[in-house]
């Protein structure tokens, strides 16, 4: 069973800074990392192929330095990595991103055969979670989003049962293969990479394709041109005008807090208060 994992290199949004003058993100302020959800997707793919045979292929669209994120996946245990990189891909929204990735997947299916596609639940930068379902729609395979567990894979029958996280619980859903899963972090713990993987990763160079390496590409559907959405303006999240500060001694502060809070007296359930 060959498993394809789509992975994205993202800036570490824990550290990224906003340039207060231009209201844009200062990408140089944060290191580029493998999207954390995608690490879980690769881990899951490795586990599944350990059980059912086949290989793990990772695919990314991005600038040349996204190679590094692919190498990270080799460390986790992926067998092969492909990077599609071309200026014509740039500025893609999720519709154009899923189109480009789909075109590469089409070629990989011809060359290697793919039984299952995995994506992260979302990427921590663009943070839409829309690319996975978009790819599935283009491949005409079922998307199963927010997966927290793969319960069973039956390669003979060509079926899979997974648990999807929903608002107040989860659902068990069965699908035929091939299908596409987007995974939550709960699905597994990313294991420490064994030494041979590290050695392999250090030497590994992913295969890089440009638009011209893909078949029957409609360039109008790529990049900025192929994107129905555009980012209008950006601004740092609104700060309210600030709090009314309560000064004075601690006793005075307590007194005032009591007064302010008790204006909302109806909120506090006190035994005996609820005389019905």
């Amino acid at each position, binding site marked *: 069973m060959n498993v394809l994992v789509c992975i994205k290199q993202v800036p570490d949004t824990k550290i990224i800074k906003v340039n207060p003058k231009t209201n844009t993100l200062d990408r140089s302020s944060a290191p580029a990392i493998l999207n954390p959800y995608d690490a879980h997707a690769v881990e899951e793919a490795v586990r599944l192929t350990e059980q059912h045979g086949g290989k793990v292929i990772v695919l990314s669209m991005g600038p040349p330095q996204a190679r590094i994120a692919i190498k990270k996946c080799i460390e986790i245990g992926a067998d092969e990595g492909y990077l599609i990189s071309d200026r014509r891909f740039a500025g893609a929204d999720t519709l154009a991103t899923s189109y480009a990735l789909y075109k590469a997947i089409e070629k990989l299916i011809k060359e290697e055969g793919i039984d299952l596609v995995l994506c992260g639940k979302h990427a921590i930068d663009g943070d839409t979670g829309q690319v996975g379902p978009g790819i599935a729609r283009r491949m005409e395979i079922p998307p199963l989003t927010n997966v927290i567990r793969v319960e069973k894979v039956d390669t003979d029958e060509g079926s899979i049962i997974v648990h999807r996280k929903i608002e107040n619980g989860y659902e068990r859903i069965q699908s035929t293969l091939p299908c596409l899963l987007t995974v939550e972090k709960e699905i597994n713990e990313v294991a420490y990479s064994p030494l041979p993987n590290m050695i392999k990763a250090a030497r590994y160079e992913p295969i890089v394709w440009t638009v011209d390496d893909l078949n029957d590409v409609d360039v109008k559907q790529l990049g900025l041109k192929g994107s129905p959405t555009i980012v209008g303006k950006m601004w740092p999240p609104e700060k309210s005008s600030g*709090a009314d500060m309560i000064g004075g001694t601690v006793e005075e502060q307590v007194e005032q807090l009591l007064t302010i809070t008790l204006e909302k007296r109806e909120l506090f359930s006190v035994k005996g208060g609820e005389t019905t």
Partner: protein
Amino acid sequence: MNLEDYKDVWVFIEQQDSHIIDVGLELLGAGRELADKLDVKLCGFILGDHVTEAAKSLYAYGADKVYVIEDPILKDYRTETYMKATGDLVRKYKPEIILYGATANGKDLASAVATEVMTGLTADTTLLDINVEKRLFEASRPAFGGNIMATILCKKHRPQMATVRPKVMKKPDPDWHREGTLELVSEAISLKEDTLRTKVIEIVREAKKAVNLEEADVIVAAGKGIKDEKGFQMVKELADALGASVGASRDIVEAGLCGHDHQVGQTGLTVTPKLYIAIGISGAVQHIVGMQNSDLIIAINNDPDAAIFNAAHVGVVADAFEIVPMLTQAFRTQLAGEEAGGVTADV
């Protein structure tokens, strides 16, 4: 594509076991404003089995018209059936804007439909508006881990679509005198169960959590400033005195002082209590996005420059270890006094 052919604002009404879940009603509130600005109809669309009765309740929340597709095949959400049904509706009736709740299924559906009908989709929005002059939908959302807000536009494709975070828009007060029209769409779903590739085997609804912060009226939340188990107990006592639920920043959850079901923020819960008291919380943007829509936010922090004071309505610069026990005591005395007073008055 002729953009003028597309009219009306639509809201996807998500149901569970034929019960409408709140986010759809919240979006009718938000959709009403958009529809009024555009001077078009506000329509709900609901898919399911036995949902017509529930559909009729939507007029009270602002819908002028409701499209209903009823079919046993649509009982539980599945991408393949819902995407097909929604795609058919969109192609037939051509809405100008569609809003979906950013729930697991709402996001799943919207993403699939966007690709199905080839249009733009703005994710997880928190602010919606119309540029009336250009007749353009302006959907804004936090991105990059909440570090930035961006307005996303979809100029040349219709419908313009967005998913909207639950609990951000206000659910309107129902007006049971409002009327509307029901459009039962019967031909749209042409799928047969035995040709489908997915099957929901079971839906496991987890028992209502012991703490349900999302529904709490009063939350007292602890941050790293309270340091340890002892400090956390101190905050819990204040919460007890107020009959409040206990919230926490991520650092408190990671320190093991309470479970993840107490965490407020981007990777925790979005809460909208009437009163939120933040104690020793610095006010990181990832925390703020989870509580900023609370009616009244009181912050206690010993650092006058803490960012939490920008998000709070009332701020107190104080040492939590000094003021919190005093506050707890003051509440206890006050509320006990009222109770005693109340009892005598009742007698």
